[in-house]
């Protein structure tokens, strides 16, 4: 069953927002096809508040949890507007990265794959 699990304590606001977005994106067949094969951890941090969540991918099992982790597979950091623009599909992650709207690191190929789970172009 496709689901997003929330681990640990109650999700912070960033986590609650991303969880709802992810619950929709995993229902998109093309997105799920990419995501279900992934393994690793993506850290997402909102730059102004420094609030972070990490999303763990383990072959179709996805869990979101508060805070960061040491040595994630990839990370992305940006302000609320920038993360929102990416998450709503208004700006592509590569364009945002090249335009220095966001910071990112780790395995960039995996970042692009993993970030599909937080991009909802539907609305």
């Amino acid at each position, binding site marked *: 069953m496709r689901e997003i699990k929330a681990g640990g304590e109650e999700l*912070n*606001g960033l986590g*609650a*927002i991303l969880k709802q*977005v992810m619950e929709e994106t995993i229902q998109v067949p093309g997105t799920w096809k990419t995501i279900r094969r992934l393994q690793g951890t993506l850290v997402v941090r909102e730059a*102004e*508040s420094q609030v972070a969540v990490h999303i763990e991918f383990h072959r179709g099992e996805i869990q979101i949890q508060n805070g960061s982790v040491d040595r994630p597979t990839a990370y992305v950091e940006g302000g609320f507007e920038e993360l*929102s623009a990416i998450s*709503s599909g208004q700006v592509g992650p590569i364009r945002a990265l090249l335009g220095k709207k966001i910071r990112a690191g780790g395995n960039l190929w995996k970042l692009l794959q993993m970030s599909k789970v937080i991009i909802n172009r539907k609305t």
Partner: protein
Amino acid sequence: MAVLYPSQEWCDEWKKAIDRNPSVAETGKNWGSDFNGSWLFEVQPGGGLEKTCYVYLNAKNGKCTDARMVQEPSEVNPGFTAVGSYADYKEVVKGEKDFIEGVMRGTFKIKGDMSRIMRNAKFIRAVANSISSFEATYLGE
């Protein structure tokens, strides 16, 4: 003249502040046009407020169409809700804390279609900024 937060007078001033903010008009063109873009702010006791109160705000196409106190949440049908304590809301109204940051931290718990919020982040920011653009007085001070 400063108005008491929360009160109907304060809601009236907030509506005016939203409507004179060019960023709201510019970024909110699509807000509420094909979905319910109204908000209910649940303000929980503390910091001088003794009883939970509710502020209802409706905005459509970059204009505030309604801002008022409601007695019960059942009186309205909001598309989005934000819940927080009076002490925390007060800091936002004073301009001492950022509403978006409060949402990120979970200080304010929001419900509704998050994709809409993400897609209209600049509009949300503009409306949130307008909240501290006029003088207010506060309970418990």
